[in-house]
């Protein structure tokens, strides 16, 4: 595109925004409201995702081997586990290693356990990791059926419930965000459609003298993009400020190993960029949609 043409499109696009200032306020308001809600959902969803990822990467099955198992029984059990196709990797941890780890984990309280070094009551253990956290339950119950297995543990209740919750949250979040975006596009499109009547003659003449549809569409593209970008200013400010506040105040209280908020930097910036892109996208879509009807040949 020639630079002059681009300047013209930009000039026309901004002119329309200024000329219909009340409509612009309405369209920008629609974008702002939408993006604030979308931002809240995205913050929640992405953090839940992060937590789920942590759980998923931490989640493992601990297979407690019968105290009476002989060395070849243990090897055989290892082969059986190895043959399961959802198993990503596994390793053997002897009862001595288990005790060492336990003592270390407990810190000062662990010293008491050192007494057991002479007569270790713990089991030998296979630690099994699956490809997906969703596979944990299935693999665990299969292993439970193998011989020489005393017990199997993968924090089943907690993990299952968290994963399920996260799954639901994801579906609801995506549905909600999609609905919000569609509503905003519809609102913007309708708002701009109201202003288009004045421009109908102009579009008619442009088509009559042989302007290409893309040429006619460009100012609307610019107008929509600006609407979206302006509409994303307040949501971005809220994200940058609000998430900072949340992060400072909430993160320390969530003192669990695997529950940790995404760090403000870069998360808040990434989210802001996302909002800017979404804003521009719905603005452009709404605007270009509104002109479509007038471009039918």
């Amino acid at each position, binding site marked *: 595109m*020639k630079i*002059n*043409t681009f300047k*013209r499109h930009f000039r026309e696009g901004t002119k329309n925004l200024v000329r219909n200032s009340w409509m612009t306020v309405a369209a920008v308001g629609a974008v702002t409201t939408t993006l604030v809600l979308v931002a809240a959902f995205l913050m929640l969803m992405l953090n839940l995702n992060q937590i789920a990822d942590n759980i998923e990467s931490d989640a493992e099955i601990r297979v407690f081997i019968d105290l009476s198992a002989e060395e070849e029984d243990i090897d055989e059990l290892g082969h059986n586990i190895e043959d399961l196709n959802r198993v990503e990797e596994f390793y053997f941890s002897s009862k001595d290693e288990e005790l060492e780890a336990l003592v270390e984990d407990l810190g000062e309280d662990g010293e008491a356990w050192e007494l057991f070094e002479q007569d270790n009551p713990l089991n030998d253990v296979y630690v099994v990791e699956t490809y997906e956290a969703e596979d944990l339950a299935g693999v665990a119950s299969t292993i439970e059926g193998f011989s020489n297995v005393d017990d199997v543990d993968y924090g089943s209740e907690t993990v299952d419930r968290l994963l399920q919750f996260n799954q639901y949250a994801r579906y609801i979040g995506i549905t909600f965000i999609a609905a919000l975006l569609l509503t905003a596009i519809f609102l913007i499109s309708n708002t701009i459609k109201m202003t288009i009547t004045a421009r109908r*003659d*102009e579009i*008619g*003449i*442009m*088509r*009559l*003298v*042989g*302007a*290409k*549809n893309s*040429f*006619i569409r460009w100012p609307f593209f610019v107008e929509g993009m600006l609407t979206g970008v302006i509409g994303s200013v307040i949501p971005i400010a809220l994200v940058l400020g609000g998430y900072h506040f949340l992060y400072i105040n909430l993160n320390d209280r969530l003192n669990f190993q695997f529950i940790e908020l995404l760090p403000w930097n870069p998360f808040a910036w990434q989210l802001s960029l996302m909002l800017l892109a979404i804003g521009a996208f719905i603005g452009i879509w709404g605007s270009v949609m509104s002109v479509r009807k007038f471009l039918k*040949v």
Partner: protein
Amino acid sequence: MIEMNNVYKVYDNGVTALNGISSTIDNGEFVYVVGPSGAGKSSFIKMMYREEVPSKGQVKINHVDIGDMKDKQVPYLRRSIGVIFQDFKLLPKLTVYENVAFALEVIEENPRKIRRRVMDVLDKVGLKHKARFIPAQLSGGEQQRVAIARAIVNNPKVVIADEPTGNLDPDTSWEIMRIFEEVNASGTTVIMATHSKDIVNKIRRRVIAMENGQIVRDEHRGEYGYED
């Protein structure tokens, strides 16, 4: 050259506007299209700049069938055709100069060429001195001259006018006709739908008379031929 071969047009509301039209208009001709209101004159000329496509039959412009034409090609067709309406269709907020230049700007002509072409064509229609006026400051005849300037600024091969003198008094109408004759004399095809008996009978040209969506008469140097 415009060729129509057994063209029918039925609108979505069921109205049959064209009922088997066949006709050929050669390059450089001057053609009046006459007939009572609702005879199909407008539909007939709308086919020529592909504002409408035939329901049946063929319309060929320079041997290209507009029914097969892709939407993307339509703007290029329109650039070779200038269209003028009874109600001028000028943009009220733009000056005379801007209204005419608009036609070149939207097809991305280069700015230097635009200035030269616009001033030339305003000179041709006798409105160079009113280039900075807005349409509301002009008389009806002057506004129509601006519309003609806009239609011919791109040197089209064909000029199509739908009752261009319909809103104008007789004296002004003759001025407009003089411009059309000049345009035609330079080799441009002129096709004009009109209700003006005086004009048709005085400036004798080919007359295509329509009734009920059909061509009922097609004469060279013809007459208007009926009373309104």
